[in-house]
């Protein structure tokens, strides 16, 4: 669903090993500048490879963990229709995670390694999934705002310089639009319902608005790793540019619902054509990233349990495959 590019800064030591010549680096950058796609087995700077592995695997982990807040409501969806839609959406998130793991594996990292890093807490995933889903309207708010923010982020990634990642993103983006529209429609239905239902929708917007804005990552001024990712055309727009774009398109959608965006400084600037907004509470963002959000522990514990509970299935399938292969060899 989403990539925040969380911890790419300060870890770019591989290139410094000196195995990469200036000529190689220049030739690589020339390919990037010519908008050529880089493919799996092509030569690439070690730092480019590592940046991508980190970003794509974080993105994959976000999709996988992202199934939990929504999965929380599967058994309590208010109608069979809503339940079928939510099931399909959660299944899509699993699919997105798998496309992305598959893309990351082309860079030479194994699936087990990536999953291991998630379960050990070493790898990060998007901050947004550490917030709880407290009422049914949260499912609408997630589709509308979280998937909406994800789309803003992911559309430019379809043009990312790394071929396998960009192709995975094209696939993801095609499916993401369903996610956002079902979420908005859910909100619309609540807003046209009883006063109590509309209040639920407002409550969901109040709680998800700021975390959704944080999904774009830190302000450009403090987001140190952006420049290199931009030069490599992994990233096409800055965090703040994308965030502004999201706010500009989303505020009118909230107005249509008759809901109030929880920001008393929000106002449209006629001159710039953009909305102005309050400062974001970055302390909250960094706390969540550091593992201290409302649900970090719960999310990871649940993922670890699922992995452990599935161990016998994986082993049994392996044993069955071995037995069949042995029988085929003997025949």
């Amino acid at each position: 669903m989403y990539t925040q590019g969380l911890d790419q800064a300060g870890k770019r030591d591989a290139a410094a090993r000196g195995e990469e010549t200036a000529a190689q680096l220049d030739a690589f950058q020339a390919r990037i500048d010519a908008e050529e796609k880089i493919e799996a087995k092509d030569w690439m700077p070690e730092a480019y490879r590592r940046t991508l592995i980190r970003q794509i695997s974080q993105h994959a982990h976000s999709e996988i963990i992202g199934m939990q807040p929504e999965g929380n409501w599967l058994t309590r969806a208010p109608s069979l229709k809503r339940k079928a839609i939510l099931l399909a959406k959660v299944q899509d998130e699993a699919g997105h995670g798998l496309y992305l793991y598959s893309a990351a594996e082309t860079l030479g990292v194994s699936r087990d390694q990536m999953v291991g890093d998630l379960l050990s807490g070493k790898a990060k995933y998007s901050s947004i999934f550490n917030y709880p889903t407290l009422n049914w309207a949260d499912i609408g708010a997630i589709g509308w705002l979280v998937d909406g923010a994800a789309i803003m982020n992911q559309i430019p990634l379809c043009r990312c310089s790394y071929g396998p990642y960009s192709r995975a993103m094209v696939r993801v983006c095609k499916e993401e639009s369903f996610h956002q529209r079902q979420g908005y429609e859910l909100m619309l239905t609540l807003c046209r319902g009883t006063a109590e239902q509309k209040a639920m929708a407002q409550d969901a917007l109040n709680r998800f608005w700021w975390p959704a804005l944080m999904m774009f990552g830190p302000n450009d001024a403090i987001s140190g790793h952006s420049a290199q990712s931009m030069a490599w055309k992994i990233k096409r727009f800055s965090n703040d540019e994308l965030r502004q774009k999201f706010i500009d398109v989303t505020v009118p959608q909230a107005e249509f619902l008759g809901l109030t965006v929880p920001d008393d400084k929000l106002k449209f600037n006629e001159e710039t054509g953009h909305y102005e907004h309050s400062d974001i509470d970055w302390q909250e963002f960094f706390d969540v990233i550091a593992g201290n959000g409302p649900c970090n522990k719960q999310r990871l514990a649940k993922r670890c349990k699922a992995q452990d509970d599935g161990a016998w299935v994986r082993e049994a399938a392996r044993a069955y495959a071995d037995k069949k292969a042995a029988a085929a060899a003997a025949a």
Partner: protein
Amino acid sequence: MSKQEWPLYEVFIRSRAGLSHRHAGSVHAADDEMALSNARDTYTRRTEGVSIWVVRSEQIVASDPAETAAFFEPAEDKIYRHPTFYEIPDEVENL
């Protein structure tokens, strides 16, 4: 963690009859049969395919990107293989 990772399969999908199979991505599976159903669940949730091929990734034989120039060089200087190489007067039709 499982002690041993399930093997990786590359997935190729024919989106409709008349088109060739095209690489979609990869899946892990314990065996061929599971690879097919995993590929179906992962890559064709919206009727994107009418046929799937899966093949163990380790079985793919690929050209080396580092050798691309040399490997494809024999085709580079044979421009006479293209119809535009031949100059035919405009008056000659149907050629």
